[in-house]
């Protein structure tokens, strides 16, 4: 027996966390997302999602994040200015009870005999995080019952309600909502259970939905023409939030509707204060929805920023071309592949009047040009 033992650090034995670089990481509720950002969301950090145009997929990601928190008995703080946070909680998905269903196709693959020349090659992993045991998969058709949520430690913060007289006298921000939210977060984060030095520790999952939506930015747009002060409150808020969360056991999960911003370059300022960021580009409503190339997917997934916290080396994602699809029981992020063959075509290209010409060239015509 070896006399050398690795001592496990009992300080971080919080449920639903894993230790990496001496820092606890939590799951986002989507194993494939955890995989592409380096094993999960680091505590004491900000994670931003640039919303898709309709905001439907970013909303689903928020639900996964919160549902994972409920399962792991983490504390939740939900803030929104657009809709009542209590309603967000009502539709949290339930964890899949039988993960074995997903494992069946893999078993079949193992039984298949592989030609000798391909045996030495590594397994191609187009679907990320499928073998991960960290985090859960959720069934969007089933909701967590209200009793479980009531028993959980959930704090709601609806910013657009009417009890704001005490906050309107502040001098830090043009829009009092930023100040109100900061105050509430500071109050909850300063609790001893969310400090790294405490013995009875827990994780605080902070979800802020649609930060920077027209409700937040209305005052910035009042000034005509829109001057350099546009979005300054938002930049300042995110920096302050970064400072408040630093070295605590809280994780902020923020969705930002960046497509609504007046200034395209504004997002690059925001990203400096954020630790990790991704962008969702949904096909819904765009011409790509009907494009056969993307028929297997619901949208593209971009990783825009990955920070190295407590280490020098930032995580390098396995691929930069990623797409996602939303199934009932899974949100999957995959390496973007073209389908094996798009569609059947006739042997001679010039005979195929249904084929779309690659580029506009001499003599090229499109199907839509034929009127009868």
């Amino acid at each position, binding site marked *: 027996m070896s006399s050398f033992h690795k001592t496990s650090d009992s300080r971080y034995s919080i449920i639903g966390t894993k230790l990496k*670089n001496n820092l606890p990481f939590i799951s986002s509720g989507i194993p494939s997302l955890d995989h592409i950002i380096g094993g999960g969301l680091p505590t004491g950090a900000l994670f931003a999602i640039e919303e898709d145009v309709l905001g439907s997929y970013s909303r689903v990601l928020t639900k996964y994040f919160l549902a994972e928190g409920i399962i792991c008995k983490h504390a939740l703080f939900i803030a929104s200015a657009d809709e009542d946070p209590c309603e967000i909680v009502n539709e949290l998905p339930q964890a899949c009870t039988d993960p074995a269903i997903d494992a069946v196709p893999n078993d079949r693959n193992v039984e298949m005999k592989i030609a000798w020349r391909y045996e030495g090659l590594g397994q191609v992993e187009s679907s990320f995080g499928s073998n991960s045991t960290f985090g859960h998969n959720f069934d969007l058709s089933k909701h967590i019952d209200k009793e479980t949520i009531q028993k959980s430690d959930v704090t709601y913060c609806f910013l657009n309600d009417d009890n704001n007289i005490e906050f309107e006298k502040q001098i830090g921000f043009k829009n009092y909502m930023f100040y109100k939210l*900061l105050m509430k977060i500071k109050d909850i984060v300063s609790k001893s259970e969310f400090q790294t030095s405490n013995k009875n520790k827990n994780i605080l999952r902070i979800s802020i939905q649609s930060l920077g939506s027209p409700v937040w930015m209305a005052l910035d747009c009042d000034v005509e023409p829109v001057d350099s002060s546009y979005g300054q409150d938002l930049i300042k808020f995110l920096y302050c939030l970064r400072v408040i969360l630093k070295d605590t056991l809280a994780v902020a999960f923020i969705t930002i509707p960046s497509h609504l911003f007046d200034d395209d*370059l504004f997002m690059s*300022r925001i990203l*400096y204060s954020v630790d990790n960021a991704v962008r969702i580009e949904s096909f819904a409503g765009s011409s790509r929805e009907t494009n056969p190339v993307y028929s297997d997917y619901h949208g593209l997934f971009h990783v825009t920023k990955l920070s190295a916290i*407590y280490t*020098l080396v930032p995580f390098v994602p396995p691929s930069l071309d990623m797409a996602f699809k939303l199934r009932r029981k899974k949100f999957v992020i995959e390496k973007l592949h073209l389908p094996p063959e798009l569609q059947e075509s006739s042997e001679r290209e010039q005979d195929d009047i249904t084929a779309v010409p690659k580029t506009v060239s001499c003599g090229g015509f499109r199907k839509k040009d034929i009127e009868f």
Partner: protein
Amino acid sequence: MSSDIITTLEIDKENSSSKIFVVKEISGCDSSFIISCVLGHFVKNRSAVLIISTHNSIKHYQNVGLKMNYNLIKGVDAGLINVYDVGNEYVDKLLKNEHLSLDSIFESIKEKVEQMQHKYDMVNVIVDGISHLLNMQYNVRDVNTVCSNIIDLVRCYKNSLLFLHCNVANELDVTHVVSNLLCHKAHMVLEVENLTSGWSADVSGHLTLKYPGRKFEDEYMFSMDLKPTQYLFKLFDRGVKLLAPGTV
């Protein structure tokens, strides 16, 4: 593994005058590895440092330092390293509905440097995120003034070094203006940039060194065209390796 950076910056040589280094982070690249390397050099040579922190926490530098074989907290306990967390002070004041002026920030910095000066001959200063001062809604003029004051403060002391880290969000932004203003006052400018083609497992990014301060040195007095030096850098857990372009 930090020797590449230390040699390139020439901070291992004895200098009679103080030097200003400006680090420009372009296209979202993180330059904190330079701070970690430089801190390691200071700790090992027992040089006093004041870290003015706005971006990363001291815990971050401590954890990185442990992997690079030095203990920052021991230095803090010994008084060799002093940390001034501007971000924390700013947010505390903001939530109390009070305003923290840049003048009072500078006064605190000056006080800390002077205190350390009593004990150590030279005091090095590291500012890890000048651009966050703009995020705190201070204007370009005030930020430029406070940086000039810090530069003047460090120049008073012989052989002291000042590192100013500045993030450039994009070329049309105020962060770009501030970084350019600082570059004019620098002895050496380090531009750290991500690979334009995306991430790579072999190389972490580009490092370009420019020498605006050399035109005042005797050796380079008559050379009109001071060419920048370009490197590729690769980050490891325990340090950084610099590579010549084309050698990967």
